[in-house]
């Protein structure tokens, strides 16, 4: 039944339908055949880029506070039915984490990871791959050769600078594909009206994902106007302008509908959120001041990939003189200039928006140089400027590649092998194991979801930033930091403490009960002493004196045997009070031998609460275990395990004070 029925036609003039041709191949097959050459270049790059980003994604870099915030907000959408896990305060438009929530919701990513942030990082992988495809398409639209488009895509996917930031859960990574899509559609030739409307919409989404992307607006407009056909220009531009304005207006309407457009008592507002972002951000300092935040931010970029930064900037300068790359070159140089303006605030992820354009420019300028070089070889008349320029650029590129190989190898090795997040994982585990679950915690936001999932009450896991910035949290903690029991410090907490009196106080009036990692990766669990630093110190001193006294007595007990090292540890008062009490009880039943005390992970330098003993007085190891578990709740060990070396007794981490006189 393949014949088509001819409709009876009144006319005779109409041209006959062409004779039926050979049945065309299936659409998918035809598509594959037409794009085989592109796919052969693009797919391997995507695969390698994807693997590099995904492998050890959870290990490096260490997760940071911001990642936790965006992840927790995405989690809140799916699990709490709220836009954020705290009061939404218009710090960023919510579209970014709504998209992350969309990804995690559709793929059930939160169920796949013990650390919620890693679900967010998986979403970043998705957005990066989409961006990479769009870079390819954008490069091809700008008439780059397949090889050059491949270079752009590969640099975007593999530069260590890119890998570091693409792995991190930043809203910028979600906005980049939208921005690239906006540029791609702005360059559409057929169906320009639909293309421009789509471009405006995509750009609106990009800005509502990360507001800093508004910076690209003049350049998108430039590309659009330059590409617009004269005859339809007025309509295409007016319509797309209106669409963009409407997408922006949607955010305003959203705020207005919630009654949160204008500042007022008892609620957050769009205006105050905007004035926070625009007005109150502190300057990042000067690039010349090596102690400034600016220097630190830029230095981090620089260390990650000097070659890409140098080549990207050089390409931007050369790109100014090439018609097809000019808007992108100006965009990059403008964004860099904005960064260096006086009193600028440079957000750490600022570089993310520049990565795709840097990669594109490097490839486009290289492509132009190669084509100019070939044209000369082919005998086409060329100017001496293009001849010299092309040769110089090809030499520079060769040098760059030579420098790039060792740099990338070292950096990417680090990304694939080092586990910088282990201290965070350990600290979370420690808190879950050792901190009573009815405690109130002040934490880095990157642990928030995990601790809530561990069973801590949502209101008792407080993102440290909120303790004195969110009215709802303040109302629950009328005594400020004193209402919290523990503080988990990360690099973010330590560096941000300066802005928060409550966190500063909590830091000052707390003592470390566990510590993991070192340097910037160090994560401490600190017990807060609501009665204050001085009182806590006094209690600790009294306690320690009692521990020394009791330890010395035990060391001298003839029933006690142990190495000299153990006795020294006892005499130094390093054994946990409960252990001292239990030990002395046990000594009354007969001889006790104790192995040298070893700290538990994360508890170096703190009282030993894990001991390995053999006791003949209490009978068999099984009887000893029964004896130990029946000493009463105040002294009871948390675990008693029998090993070949003796019985390992571990007391709970949090030591009640005043057990010893």
């Amino acid at each position, binding site marked *: 039944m393949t014949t088509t029925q001819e409709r009876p036609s009144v006319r005779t003039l109409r041209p006959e339908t062409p004779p039926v041709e050979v049945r065309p191949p299936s659409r998918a097959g035809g598509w594959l055949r037409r794009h085989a050459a592109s796919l052969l270049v693009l797919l391997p790059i995507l695969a390698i880029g994807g693997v590099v980003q995904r492998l050890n994604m959870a290990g490096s870099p260490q997760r940071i506070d911001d990642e936790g915030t965006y992840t927790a907000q995405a989690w809140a959408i799916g699990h709490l039915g709220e836009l954020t896990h705290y009061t939404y305060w218009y710090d960023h438009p919510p579209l970014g984490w709504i998209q992350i929530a969309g990804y995690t919701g559709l793929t059930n990513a939160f169920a796949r990871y013990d650390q919620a942030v890693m679900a967010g990082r998986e979403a970043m992988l998705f957005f990066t791959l989409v961006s990479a495809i769009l870079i390819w398409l954008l490069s091809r639209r700008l008439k780059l050769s397949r090889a050059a488009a491949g270079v752009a895509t590969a640099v975007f996917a593999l530069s260590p600078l890119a890998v570091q930031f693409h792995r991190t859960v930043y809203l910028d990574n979600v906005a980049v594909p939208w921005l690239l899509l906006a540029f791609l559609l702005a360059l559409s030739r057929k169906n320009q009206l639909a293309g421009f409307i789509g471009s405006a919409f995509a750009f609106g989404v990009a800005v509502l994902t990360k507001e800093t992307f508004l910076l690209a607006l003049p350049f998108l407009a430039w590309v659009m106007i330059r590409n617009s056909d004269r005859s339809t220009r007025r*309509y295409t531009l007016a319509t797309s302008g209106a669409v963009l304005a409407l997408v922006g207006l949607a955010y305003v309407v959203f705020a207005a*509908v919630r009654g949160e457009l204008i500042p007022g008592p008892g609620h957050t507002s769009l205006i105050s959120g905007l004035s926070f972002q625009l007005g109150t951000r502190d300057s990042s300092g000067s690039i010349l001041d090596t102690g400034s935040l600016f220097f630190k931010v830029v230095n981090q970029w620089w260390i990650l990939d000097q070659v890409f930064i140098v080549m990207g900037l050089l390409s931007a300068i050369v790109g100014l003189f090439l018609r097809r790359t000019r808007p992108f070159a100006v965009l990059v140089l403008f964004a860099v200039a904005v960064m260096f303006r006086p009193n600028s605030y440079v957000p750490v992820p600022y570089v993310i928006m520049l990565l795709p354009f840097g990669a594109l420019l490097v490839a486009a300028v290289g492509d132009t140089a190669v084509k100019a070089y070939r044209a000369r070889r082919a005998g086409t008349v060329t100017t001496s400027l293009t001849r010299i320029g092309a040769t110089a650029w090809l030499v520079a590129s060769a040098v760059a590649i030579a420098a790039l190989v060792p740099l990338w190898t070292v950096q990417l090795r680090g990304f694939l092998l080092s586990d910088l997040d282990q201290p965070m994982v350990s600290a979370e585990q420690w808190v879950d194991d050792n901190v009573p679950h009815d405690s109130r915690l002040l934490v880095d936001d990157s642990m928030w979801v995990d601790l809530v999932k561990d069973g*801590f*009450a949502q209101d008792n896991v407080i993102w440290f930033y909120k303790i004195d910035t969110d009215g709802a949290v303040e109302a629950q903690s009328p005594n400020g930091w004193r209402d919290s029991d523990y503080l988990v410090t990360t690099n973010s907490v330590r560096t941000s403490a300066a802005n928060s009196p409550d966190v500063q106080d909590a830091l000052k009036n707390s003592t470390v009960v566990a510590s993991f990692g070192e340097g910037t990766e160090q994560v401490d669990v600190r017990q807060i002493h609501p009665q204050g630093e001085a009182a806590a110190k006094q209690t600790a001193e009294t306690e320690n004196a009692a521990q020394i006294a009791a330890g010395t007595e035990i060391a001298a007990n003839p029933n006690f045997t142990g190495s000299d090292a153990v006795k020294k540890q006892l005499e130094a008062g390093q054994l946990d009070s409960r252990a001292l009490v239990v030990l002395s*009880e046990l000594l009354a039943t007969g001889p006790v031998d104790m192995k040298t005390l070893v700290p538990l992970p994360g508890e170096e330098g703190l009282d030993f609460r894990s001991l390995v003993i053999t006791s003949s007085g209490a009978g068999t190891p099984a009887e000893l275990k029964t004896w130990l578990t029946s*000493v009463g709740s105040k002294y009871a060990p948390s675990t008693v395990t029998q090993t070949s070396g003796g019985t390992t007794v571990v007391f709970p981490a949090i030591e009640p004070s005043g*057990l*010893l*006189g």
Partner: protein
Amino acid sequence: MSFDPTRLTTLAAAGDPAPLLTPQAPQDGSFVPNRGASTGVDPSAVGFHLPAWTPLEWVGYSAMVIVALLLTAVAVSTLWWMLHAWRSKDNLSGTAFSENPLKAEHTFTLLVPGRHEEEVMGQTLDRLAQQDHQGFEIIAIVGHDDPGTERVAREAAARHPELIRVIVDDSVPKNKPKALNLALQTAKGEIVGVFDAEDEVHPRLLSLVDSKFTETGADVVQGGVQLMNFQSSWWSLRNVLEYYFWFRSRLHFHAKSKFIPLGGNTVFVTKKWLDWSEGWDAGCLAEDCELGVRLSSAGANVVVAYTPEVVTREETPGSFTSLLKQRTRWNQGFMQVLGKGEWKKLPTFRQRFYARYLLTMPFIQAVTGLLIPVSIILMLTVKVPTGVALISFIPLAPTLVLLAVEITGLAEFGRTYGIKVRALDYFRLIWGLIPYQVFLALGAVRAVYRQLRGQNGWEKTEHTGAHRDADVPTETGATVTPIGAGRTAEPQPAYAMVSGDER
């Protein structure tokens, strides 16, 4: 013999350890740790839940959402069709007559019915006679009870005896399709064109249309018609833009989708097809639309062409009331066409859907026009959940884009026809948006009312000749050749078919 070297052992007995010291939290009275009001994550609260609304709220909110989405769909489709011509460069250039017309290959009969239009008809006939085409005749149709117009028409025929014939229609009551059908009986051309008595027709039009027939193998060619007097009043401005977007852009979409309501003039149909259709439906108030529907349904190839230079210029009705009457007549006509059901013969579902949608459009428009202000009021007065409120705002988005497009269209119109658009015009355009929607709604409601009452007569449409204003562009700087210069700017009665019950 045991001795007791450790004093601590005396303080506590195994199995029942008493505290060595009673631990005491220091009480300085400065604070009470707050542990109240903690809400953990209740596992049952995880995930999405249906909101706890009352049944009434469910109904109300659902209705709001559905209406909002429908309105959005209507507004977006209207907008998209309105922008059809400018979708791409190729699309736009495809809407025009060819720049270099082919050699003439067809003969034409031009029908010009006139009624109480002695002021304009003579000039219209003279101008038609100046067409640079070689093979055409003109038939002027006048009523037997209208000696003034008949005289003017006969004088014109005397000036161009080889081109113009006059036919007197003595039927009662009179209407335009009857007049056209009468003239059709003696038409000799291969192609029949229709013009109104007040139309300003470009002298090259026939050559271009002839070429279009040859190029495309068309059965029907619809040329552009353009109202000109956008500065007369706020509603004339909107009426002019309606025509502009209709003929400039949207009609091309309908032609492409193979379902098209034809316009009342500057429409050219092959004699063969008119014989097939037995002319126009004399019982229909929108005989032009009806013919288009029947031709579309039968598979005729309809081509639309718009080139600004050669559009047929017209004017808006002279008063708001006559605009309302005209709109009522169209709407009633659309209802008749819808009821007649010829469109059901269209071959594809898509075409039938478009037909039903288009013919219902006046009434959808009425509802839309009324619902937009209603929804704004609701939004400002009724407290609804954020999500519902946001959805109810969505229809505003295409409406605002529409306004931006209309502003652009007005600017383009002014530029194309060399008329300076004043700030006042833009201002009128913006504030006229809602009132014009109300007007459209009024027209629709009135049409339904009259249709139900069985009032199917023609209502009078007056013309003032404002499109023939002296303010037409001159050669310098204008993109359009002035063809109306020298005509009177006085208000004139124009072609009008009036039914008995309206007189």
